[in-house]
């Protein structure tokens, strides 16, 4: 009897123990799965790529704007207001081509006046000639002398007046017109019809001599060049094309960047002075003789150099920089309880070259078959666990 | 007549034993016998690899080591006191729990629980008590007595002994309880009918039929008395207070000194001691087995 009772009691106890045990293990199991999921979710998410072996053509792109080799300003010296402007901006003009006509009326009136005065003088000279003839017949030496003087002075006046008229006449033809002194292109028309101008009226570019620009180029890329070498230059704008340029001047860069305000020679790197400073630059002047180019046009010099033989190509976003140099975040996988776990490891690399998309880094042992982090949802640290 | 029949079929058991023994023997050879044999081999050489045979040189050196002698003495003392104490206490408890008792189950659980306490907790709780700033010293302070550095005093020995007993009493009790179940109740009933008192029953039946279990418990208690090294080591390090410096410390230190020869030699000596002890126990057991045949 007692045995039966106690065995019944025992069975209930066993059942209780089983229930508690399954509860205990159940909770732990649930928690194991749940917490792993939770931790997984809180990890920063990263996007990776594998560096591909190959040589990156390191592109150098330098842009600069053209400036002319020779450009002159044409002035109206008459001070008359322009009446007709024949040239338009961008016109290609021949030597001697009429560009601007100026107001002639003032000059013409003056000429008329002068001619009238000449007429008067001529009339006066007839009188004096007669006087002189009369006096010459006489014996009065003084009178003869006086008459001759008067006639001489009048002749001088006459010739002076004639010269003036001549001058006025040339002025009338010359100064009332602006003609191209050389073949070229009108770069700008400053004159405005009917308004007298004080400064230049037309700016004319000498197309024979062409355009030129200055640019800073990494020394190692420019190493093969000499003055006088030809170089391809790309024009920027709607109709981009390649034109031939010629190097006119090369000099080592002074390093003082304030000297060149214009150009933005850049290796397409995140603005990092250290990097710039690290590269030796050369100042190059290139002349282009292409008629279609205008001053101020942006031109671009594109250079490619194969960076090393043993390089790996990475997305540029993957390479970061700090005080000690360039580094990448690699993904390291360590086996974990539920499959592999991934950790960030920071590794310094040697950057060999870059273009706007990718970076070439020196081949290093650990880079083989390593996933490099390109993007991350959070800032990363060495040793951090991530998911991807 | 009966007896000779038994003997005859026992003799035939050799073949029958093979299937029972084979799995165990295979694994045992691989993981235990070979290492044991190698240890034995090491104890006669001066180096583990390419050593030269030095005969009993290692043994001589070992016995000449005062630290080894100290360790042996301490171990003998500890086990000599600890094992009987533990067995007495656990047997008493097992007998107690084998009777009808209120809240028996709960108390039994309470006694067994120390078994499951992880070493880390044991060490930490011990430290709470015996640390320089520990509870024991706090009590001493309240009694206006000076503090004691328990780990560097003879008190440490008692502390370790307490840990040993506390931890293993449940272990032994389980064994005894299981052992007690193998004694048929009918024996007691017969004895009671024959008018034997409970003390007589204990000596005549319980203890006799418990002999194999007892044999086992003695050996396990001995093994466990060696295992208390783990706690000692975590509490007091590789070089504890003199009295606590046991044979396990010696062996452990020899291991980390790469002195496998001395380690093996010490182990072989220890084994020798245990073999003698066990032969004695086995002999008693045999007598018992013959008794119940």
């Amino acid at each position: 009897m007692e045995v039966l009772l106690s065995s019944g009691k025992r069975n209930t106890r066993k059942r209780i123990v089983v229930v508690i045990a399954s509860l205990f293990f159940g909770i732990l199991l649930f928690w194991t799965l749940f917490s792993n999921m939770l931790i997984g979710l809180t990890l920063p998410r990263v996007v990776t790529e594998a560096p591909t072996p190959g040589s990156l053509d390191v592109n150098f792109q330098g842009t600069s704007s053209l400036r002319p080799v020779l450009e002159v300003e044409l002035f109206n010296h008459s001070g008359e207001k322009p009446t007709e402007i024949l040239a338009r901006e961008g016109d290609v003009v021949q030597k001697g081509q009429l560009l601007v006509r100026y107001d002639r009326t003032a000059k013409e009136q003056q000429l008329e006046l002068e001619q009238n005065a000449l007429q008067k003088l001529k009339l006066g000279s007839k009188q004096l000639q007669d006087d002189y003839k009369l006096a010459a017949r006489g014996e009065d030496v003084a009178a003869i002398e006086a008459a001759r003087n008067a006639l001489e002075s009048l002749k001088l006046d006459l010739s002076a007046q004639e010269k003036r008229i001549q001058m006025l006449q040339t002025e009338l033809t010359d100064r009332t017109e602006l003609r191209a002194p050389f073949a070229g292109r009108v770069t700008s028309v400053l004159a405005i019809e009917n308004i007298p101008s004080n400064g230049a009226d037309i700016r004319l570019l000498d197309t024979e001599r062409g355009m030129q620009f200055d640019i800073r180029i990494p020394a190692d890329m420019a190493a093969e060049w000499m003055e006088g070498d030809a170089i391809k230059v790309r024009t920027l704008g709607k109709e981009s094309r390649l034109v031939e340029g010629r190097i006119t001047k090369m000099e080592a860069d002074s390093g003082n960047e304030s000297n060149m305000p214009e150009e933005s020679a850049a290796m397409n790197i995140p603005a990092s002075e250290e990097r710039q400073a690290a590269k030796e630059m050369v100042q190059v002047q290139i002349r282009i003789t292409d008629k279609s180019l205008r001053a101020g046009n942006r031109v671009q010099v594109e250079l490619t150099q194969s960076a090393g033989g043993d390089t790996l190509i990475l997305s540029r976003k993957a390479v970061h920089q700090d005080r000690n140099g360039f580094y990448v975040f690699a993904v390291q996988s360590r086996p974990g309880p539920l499959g592999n776990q991934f950790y960030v490891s920071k590794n310094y690399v040697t950057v060999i070259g870059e273009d706007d998309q990718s970076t070439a880094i020196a081949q290093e042992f650990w880079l083989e078959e390593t996933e490099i982090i390109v993007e991350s949802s959070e800032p990363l640290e060495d040793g951090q666990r991530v998911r991807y | 007549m009966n007896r000779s029949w038994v003997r005859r079929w026992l003799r035939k058991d050799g073949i029958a034993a093979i299937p029972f023994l084979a799995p165990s023997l295979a694994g045992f050879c691989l993981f235990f016998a070979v290492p044991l044999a190698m240890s034995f081999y090491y104890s006669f050489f001066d180096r583990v690899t390419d050593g030269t045979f030095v005969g009993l040189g290692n043994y001589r050196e070992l016995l000449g080591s005062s630290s080894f002698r100290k360790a042996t003495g301490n171990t003998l003392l500890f086990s000599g006191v600890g094992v009987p104490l533990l067995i007495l206490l656990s047997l008493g408890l097992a007998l107690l729990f084998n009777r009808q008792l209120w809240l028996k189950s709960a108390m039994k659980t309470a006694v067994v629980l120390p078994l499951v306490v992880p070493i880390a907790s044991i060490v930490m709780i011990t430290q709470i008590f015996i640390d320089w700033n520990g509870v024991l010293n706090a009590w001493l302070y309240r009694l206006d007595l000076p503090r004691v550095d328990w780990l560097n005093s003879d008190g440490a020995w008692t502390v370790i002994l307490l840990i040993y007993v506390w931890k293993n009493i449940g272990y032994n009790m389980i064994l005894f309880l299981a052992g007690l179940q193998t004694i048929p109740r009918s024996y007691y009933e017969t004895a009671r009918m024959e008018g034997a008192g409970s003390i007589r029953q204990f000596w005549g039946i319980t203890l006799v039929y418990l002999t194999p279990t007892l044999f086992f418990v003695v050996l396990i208690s001995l093994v466990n008395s060696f295992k208390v090294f783990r706690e000692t080591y975590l509490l007091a390090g590789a070089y504890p207070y003199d009295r606590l410096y046991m044979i396990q410390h010696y062996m452990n230190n020899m291991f980390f000194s790469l002195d496998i020869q001395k380690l093996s030699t010490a182990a072989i000596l220890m084994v020798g001691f245990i073999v003698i002890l066990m032969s004695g126990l086995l002999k008693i057991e045999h007598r018992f087995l013959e008794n119940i045949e």
Partner: protein
Amino acid sequence: MKKISMFIVLCLLIVVFTGCSSAGGEGGTVNGITHTPTKQPSAPTQATKPASMPSPDPKKQSTLVFSMYKRDSYFETAAKAYEKEHPNTKIDLNYIVENTGEDVSRAKQEKFKSAMIAEFLNGKGPDLVVMDELPADKYIAKGLLANVGDMMKGDTSFKKENYYMNILDSLQTSEGGLYMLPLSFSLHTLTGDQQLLEQSGVRMNDQSWTWKEFLDTIQQLTAKQDDRYGFMAFDENKLLLDMARTDYNRLVDAANRTARFDSDLFLGMLEQIKQMKGKTVLYYGKDLKQTDGSKGFPIYFGENELLTPFQYFHYVANKQESGDHSTAFYEKPKAEGQQPGGYFEPRLKIAIHAKSSLQPEAWDFLKFLMSGEASAAAAWGANDLTYKGQGFNGTFPISKSLYAAKTNNMVQAGPLQMLEGGPVEITEKDLKKLDSLIESANKAIFDGEILQIMAKESPAYFHGQKSSQEVARIIQNKVTTYLNE
């Protein structure tokens, strides 16, 4: 019946046979990882020391196993670099922990120690091993490490002048063998204000002073002036360790297995350290904390461990800020009659397994490691103040040329920006001073079970919990146990 006995005999035979063959020379393959699969089990593999180190056969395919406790990126870099140069050699790096931070409990360290013992004693083990976490003296005593000193001598391509031979020479054992090569080291020095010390008129000679003389000097110095403390030590225990280290031979007689920690010598050390506390000796760890005067203690001498050249300048700059303009470095006290020369602490000590079948390859790789050719670190910066995780790249390298390259980098980089205060110019003159400090270092800082026992027990005295005799007795007991094992 017969079958049973046959069975038992067979089993025992298996036992004995496997036992013997395993115990004999081990050269077999394990998991197919290890090299030389063909080797007579009984052939003596005792390292026959080559008169001249044969250069490794470049055509031989080999895998060098290199074990260490902690992962070190320098080794990884170097291994890959070496593999690239030697396509037929593979380096198998084994480490237990990523960094020591994950092993606060030292469980892994215990594992590393045990595994190494098991491997070495089985005649396997790595070809190269970093000994920093292992008891090197025991390994040497058991003949498990190859004498790299001999390899060095036998190798004509090894250029001694490129290395700090003073460091290597002082790591030789008493028999003249050199079993470990440190890849780097740090310097232990005293610092003081030269001008001030000269003005004080107290005679001193840091080339030869013992601790007693040094402490006497301090006492004289502090007797003269009032506002300056004598010596800023890190704490009592470290001071005791330093003192015990110099007098180690008088405290421990390993040959006769006796210790003299109960002697007046040791008791004197203990008591002196406690007595001098205050005016003469300050303890960085405690006193500075209590007064909150972060820099405010004017002292005559301080002690310093220089891990990097950077620290040298950093320290000098710090002193300058607190008013000492002529900071000079002095040698730490040494035992009586000892050669002049400062203390250094070897780091990343690498040994070659005496039974490695790839010793020439291992030596070649070790040479490569020492040369620092694969060192990636360009310069020292403020982040490199600590040794932690810097490994080889952080500390003074054993290679002179590497050191020169690094310091050159430092000079090139211009003035050092300190964590606080202004930048510090690094001059050739400063570097020369530092050079002489390095060149003169010839005493290795060592550690061991005995010193550890001492360091564990003595704080009880310094904190006033026990008497010096009590502490000395406990130490004496434990050390005696240790020596007599």
